């Protein structure tokens, strides 16, 4: 039966030449995806073996940023999807606001002590909008072993002007969290209060590329690891931006790393167009600050409305 895998390889090859659209085109494989009749078990097994063969022979493509669509779709997203579906019960709204094919910049709030919200947004965009989002991450991630290369394989890259411009020019969907560590590491008492939006570098990139900015509000991430304190001296020694204290960490050890099962809502808002500006205007600080404020306002409003809509973070308890 080796012909099966051999005959399947060429057809797979055709799909792999344009990996991103291939990832986009295929419907998201749900966890309870009962594909066809029972007779297809053999087919699925053959498919799995063909995948295994490609992986072992190194016969797949990654893009220049290190994005490996096959690994991302078939392995990495499968691993985090249960969190999205069952643990946080994420509901995604306003998917129509995400362009189906063209480039856009998704700007979201950042929270939760660990950047779980980024992963959940990635699953949301993959499963609901059928787009591979290219997130821009802090350089700390790329210095760390394991995390750095996994992050590249799942489509993320370094938050730098060059990378952002390049991805947007290629018509990719780029995701940024302009609050950065200020947002993700803020104390629980400041939950759902947007922090400062850096220097607005993301606006500059969007204006230069003429791509729309899609404001995105994520509600629920604030409650997963309520940060009530910080080992700031130890964090400085370790070169980390913060070392959180939560009601469960470090007191419960590794158990404290289990995120609390809050209820999540993710909403993509009305896109803010930037194509009426000249790409040269990207150097105008006034325009950049105004646009940055506009995006920030939009996200804060979305956040407040979404929080009301969600109600308690841990239904049915409180």
């Amino acid at each position, binding site marked *: *039966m*080796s012909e099966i895998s051999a005959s399947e390889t060429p057809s797979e090859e055709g799909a792999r030449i344009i990996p991103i659209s291939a990832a986009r085109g295929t419907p998201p494989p749900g966890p309870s995806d009962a594909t066809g009749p029972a007779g297809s078990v053999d087919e699925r097994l053959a498919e799995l073996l063909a995948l295994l063969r490609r992986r072992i*022979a190194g*016969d797949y493509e990654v893009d220049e940023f290190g994005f490996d669509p096959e690994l991302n779709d078939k392995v990495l997203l499968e691993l985090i999807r249960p969190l999205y579906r069952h643990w946080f019960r994420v509901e995604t709204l306003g998917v129509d606001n995400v362009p189906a094919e063209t480039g856009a910049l998704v700007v979201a709030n950042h929270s939760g002590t660990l950047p779980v919200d980024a992963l959940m947004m990635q699953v949301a965009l993959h499963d609901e909008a059928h787009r591979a989002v290219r997130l821009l991450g802090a350089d700390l991630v790329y210095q760390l072993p394991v*995390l750095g290369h996994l992050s590249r394989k799942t489509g993320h890259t370094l938050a730098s002007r060059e*990378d952002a411009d*390049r991805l947007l020019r290629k018509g990719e969907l780029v995701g940024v969290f302009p609050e950065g560590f200020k947002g993700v590491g803020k104390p629980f008492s400041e939950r759902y209060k947007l922090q400062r939006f850096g220097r607005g570098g993301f606006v500059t990139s969007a204006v230069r590329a003429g791509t729309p900015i899609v404001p995105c509000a994520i509600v629920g991430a604030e409650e997963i690891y309520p940060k009530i304190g910080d080992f700031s001296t130890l964090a400085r020694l370790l070169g980390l931006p913060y070392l959180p204290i939560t009601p469960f960490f470090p007191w419960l050890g590794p158990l404290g790393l289990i995120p609390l099962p809050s209820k999540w809502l993710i909403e993509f808002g009305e896109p803010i167009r930037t194509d009426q500006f000249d790409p040269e205007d990207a150097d105008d600080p006034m325009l950049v600050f105004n646009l940055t404020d506009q995006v920030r306002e939009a996200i804060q409003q979305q956040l407040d409305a979404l929080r009301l809509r969600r109600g308690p973070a841990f239904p049915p308890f409180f």
Partner: protein
Amino acid sequence: MTHTVLVTGVSRHIGARVASALAADPGIGRVIGVDTVPPSSLTRDGGALLGRTEFVRIDLRTPDIAQVISAEDVDTVVHMSLVSEPAKSRSAMMEHNVIGTMQLLAACQRSAMVRRVVVRSTTAVYGSSPHAPAVFTEDTEPVDVPHSGYAKDAIEIEGYVRGFARRRSDVLTSTLRFANLMGPRVDSPLTRYFSQPALPTVFGFDPRLQFVHEDDVVEVMCRMAVEDRPGVFNVSGDGVLLLSQCVRRAGRTALPVPSPAFGVLGMLARTTGLVDFSPEQLALMSHGRVVDTTRLAATLAWKPKFTTAAAFDDFLQSRGMGADRTAALVDWLSGLATRR
């Protein structure tokens, strides 16, 4: 019209191939090849004969080169003599690379005949860093400047070339930054690395690598030698391979080693003279490097014939390496599993 081309570094494989390709071009009057040692390797090298190239033995670190350039009315200089690993010692390599280039450029500056200088450089000048953008264009400012070895030499050489271009603006200078060379006859630290039975990798890192096939290197150098294309250009095959992918394609086993230990291993390997694993190599093996080649494609209206993956496959084929055995094992297993 190009009359007389001077090619440096003809005793090494790639320099010899460029010289012989230029010698085969009927549009070129004479090809003069220079190097510190006679091109002995050529006889057993097969195909890459120097043709009608006239060989002159010169120590590149001495001003003798000026005499050749003025006496033979050289109008095009193709500088291929960039050594990527120390033959004797690091300081000898630095002298060969940097002092050699200085002497050559000094000779060109004094010559009234030279009107085109083509210099081989490397994408190693960009370094490899977690703080750098994913893709380097020719104008990207390197974030972590490499401060040792081959890459440092290349940076200094490029600095001298820029200075020369400023002083002699009538001379067209082209600098070509090549990605890692790959091909059947390429002998570099990287090709030797991939020839080992087990490949030490840095634990937790999977760098993006790019290769350029030796045939494409020859073609680019030859075209630059006869066309007027001043500027700096990245040259690499299209596409990217991850190190893990290379290891799998080669049918080898990866041995992940924590990064400090990898450095120590590299030093040990260097002292035994097997492989040169300098600090830049460690950085490359951790963070990888990818360059943008649109400028070259737009300028020459040409793309390297070999993609990164094709260049690597050609190298593997020539060495009789490949993932056939592992693939056959999976096929056999899938045969077992699906038969029932």
